[in-house]
């Protein structure tokens, strides 16, 4: 059984016929070729697949593509500015060495952006650690991710950036 799915992905409307059981992450990766969104597990535990659906972070492996019909989806490919300038959270991850193999990174960054948006007053380390509890990173030990998320959130809300140590 196929269904018609219309989603605005990174600002561009797309309509595709897909098998009913197609997950949103499969729709992005396989149907649209947006391979920046990753799959790290099959139990919705790792967060490698996080995208924004109507502005909120969502594990795209937990959603059928059909359930996102009519929604606006932003993936890691859609985060940087049109001129290629990195989003402040992307830039903070680079500055603070918050990625190693890069596989968890797209989901981690998308979760971090949503976390920052939900804490307009800024975040302490505990808030960041608890807020990223749904994203597993096997490489970094989280130390630099936490630093990056605090710095990236500061830049996002216009607070003076602290230099990396």
């Amino acid at each position: 059984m196929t269904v018609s799915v219309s989603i605005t992905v990174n600002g561009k409307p797309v309509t595709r016929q897909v098998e009913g059981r197609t997950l949103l992450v499969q729709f992005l990766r396989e149907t649209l070729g947006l391979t920046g969104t990753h799959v790290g597990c099959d139990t919705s535990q790792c967060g490698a697949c996080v995208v924004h659906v109507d502005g909120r972070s969502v594990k795209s492996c937990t959603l059928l593509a059909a359930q996102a019909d009519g929604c606006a989806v932003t993936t890691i490919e859609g985060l940087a500015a049109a001129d290629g300038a990195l989003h402040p959270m992307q830039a903070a991850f680079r500055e603070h060495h918050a990625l190693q193999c890069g596989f968890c990174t797209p989901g981690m960054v998308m979760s971090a952006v949503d976390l920052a948006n939900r804490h307009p007053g800024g975040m302490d380390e505990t808030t960041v650690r608890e807020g990223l509890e749904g994203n597993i990173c096997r490489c970094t030990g989280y130390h630099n991710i936490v630093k990056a998320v605090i710095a990236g959130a500061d830049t996002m809300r216009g607070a003076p950036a602290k230099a990396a140590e």
Partner: protein
Amino acid sequence: MAPLDGIGASLRRKEDQRFLTGKGRYTDDFNRHGQLHAYFLRSPHAHARIRGIDTGRAKAAPGVVDVFTGADTKAIGGLICGWMITSKDGTPMKAGSHRPLAEDKVRYVGDHVAIVIAETYNEAKDAAELIDVDYDVLTAVVVTDKARAPGAPLVHDEIAKNTCYEWSLGDKAATDAAFAKAAHVTKLDIVNNRLVPNAIEPRAAIGDYDSGMDSFTLYTTSQNPHVARLVLSAFNGIAPEHKLRVIAPDVGGGFGSKIFIYAEETVCLWASKQVGRPVKWTGDRSEAFLADAHGRDHVTTAEMAMARDGTILGLRVHTTANLGAYLSTFASCVPTYLYAPLLSGQYRIPAIYAEVDGVYTNTAPVDAYRGAGRPEATFVIERMVETAAREMKIDPAEFRRRNFVPADAFPYQTPVIMTYDSGQYHKVLDEALTLSDYAGFPARKAESAARGKLRGIGFCSYIEACGIAPSAAVGSLGAGVGLWESAKVRFNPTGNVLLYTGSHQHGQGHETTFAQLISTYLGVPTDQVEVIHGDTEKTPFGMGTYGSRSLAVGGSAIVKACEKVIEKGRKIAAHLLEAAEGDIEFKDGKFTVAGTDRAKSIQEIAFAAYVPHNYPQGVEPGLEESAFYDPVNFTFPSGTQVCEVEIDPDTGVTTIVNFVAIDDFGKIINPMIVEGQVHGGIVQGIGQALLENAVYDPESGQLLTGSYMDYTMPRADDVPSFKVGLVETPCPHNPLGVKGCGEAGAIAAPASVMNAVTDAIGKHMQMPATPERVWRAIHGTAV
């Protein structure tokens, strides 16, 4: 002045741009024209005889192109283990048959039974359910002590007592004599829990046969594509090496688990020729839990003999290592030569004797996982030292100091093979004590006690061996390969550089660190350098990345290649500058006539080499040099961690309240990257100590911890931030003075954490110190 992007700079990583924008290219991101999808049917039983397999209904299912079982793949050579271990009675290890698809028996849950190839992944997976396998279910052996009991079922019918080898190292008589004069003996039973590596990118492979060229290409999640090609050619017989290209593109973490040559890529590659189309397989996490090689799984009894003043006299260790159902690619050496030679730790121990029994069970194969043998050895010696100090009422830091190899005793020959090259163990310990405010611990403990909490502090002063390895040395110990590394430096006519390495990055940052070497050695800025790796058709043969070897061995090869470039450049410069070759100096990217300001940049020399109109006679055009580097010794990174925990006795919950790591990795190229490696390693070690445990049902052999809902991965809110520091004692025997930093955190942290936990509760307990197990330990029902 050193260039700002050379050795010593915390240069931000070149590779991050693509990873941060979703443009990384991992194996599953590749799709080949006309590609089919594979699904592997796996054994649901830990141990069963296969009476028959009926694939008829599956072959007829929608979209299915073909189905293959063990009966179809007999032409593929068996999966191999590349290190021969000899038992103490002189007999060679017993490696059971390891077929890519099971033939007579299945030997663990997840063992490979059939491959279904279809137009889509879902069709392949659906069709796999239609395969009828007639199993005669046998009793499984899961626990090593039961596997060796008389009458136990045999994993491999021809291997008695399920024993692969009974190996030993060291001088038994000397060790017995040391114990005979001991004033105090400390004894512990130690379990090193089984772990699942869990790189976040699951393994994947695309086999692609080109009938026009009669050649194969394999895209795969590998830490060592050349080794994969060699094994797939020489042992599995898929194609000769010159007809096989292996591409390991961006790889999402390895930690050892992607060193090995597994059934999946072997069969996909072979099958692509059978079906005449590319065959893609991407594992899911459940398959990773079942069929990635696991790590650790040792059961050990250790005894240590001391004189009255705490001087260590001898160490005796017996370890039973669970090898799983089959010998994985390097499984045999991990609990032997990568383990027992590290049992001396940072200490002068006159006599050591270790016995290791390698045992088969009906569980997933066990092989190298971050640290590979050294974490197990470190855990033994550091738990022993801490326990001995407590029993003898000597401060554990002081106990270590009394027994350390002193800084003036290098090179230091241990009684178990290794010659330590350098180290400053006292200095590192002192810095760790200062950074952790050891002096203030009693006050903090009292403050915790006032709140009803148990506070503990634990040390781990670790040694490890990296930079594997001098080829002749490991060859004499049974290794089937050489362990050198390669590099090629190619100047382009316009003066930028392509650097080809035989090692492979999957998180370590080679594209940045190696470019920094070029910046320092050749004076070419890092943004003018492209590091190329992971493709056997592009890079020189190399042994790949594991054992924290890439910089010590691969980096040394880069230095050698740079030296050759400079040598040739000097000849060209002498000609162009009309000076004697001996008068030409090279520095900061410039060839200068000594004592003058007459100079040519290395870019000008490169251009002259490719447009050799005015050129020295007898010198070949072009500027491209290769080098191979075979190390003369291992390197010996060392360090001390101090972990402080607070435990709630009512809930058993352990909180790490302070964590300090001082490491001596020799010379540091990029401090930012090095610290990142330390953080990541520490969390894997904390994971082992507090959270992670791969558990099989002891009767059925079913994996009880087969998903992230059952196997506790460390998450951001499980761990603290760390205080890390570096001491630099250059390695004396490689040109960079580097030692390796990739595994230290994971090697040391299990011991530092468990020393802190056992200090807090006042009792020995086994890992992982989960709340339930800690609570039981405190309240007297220890596990």
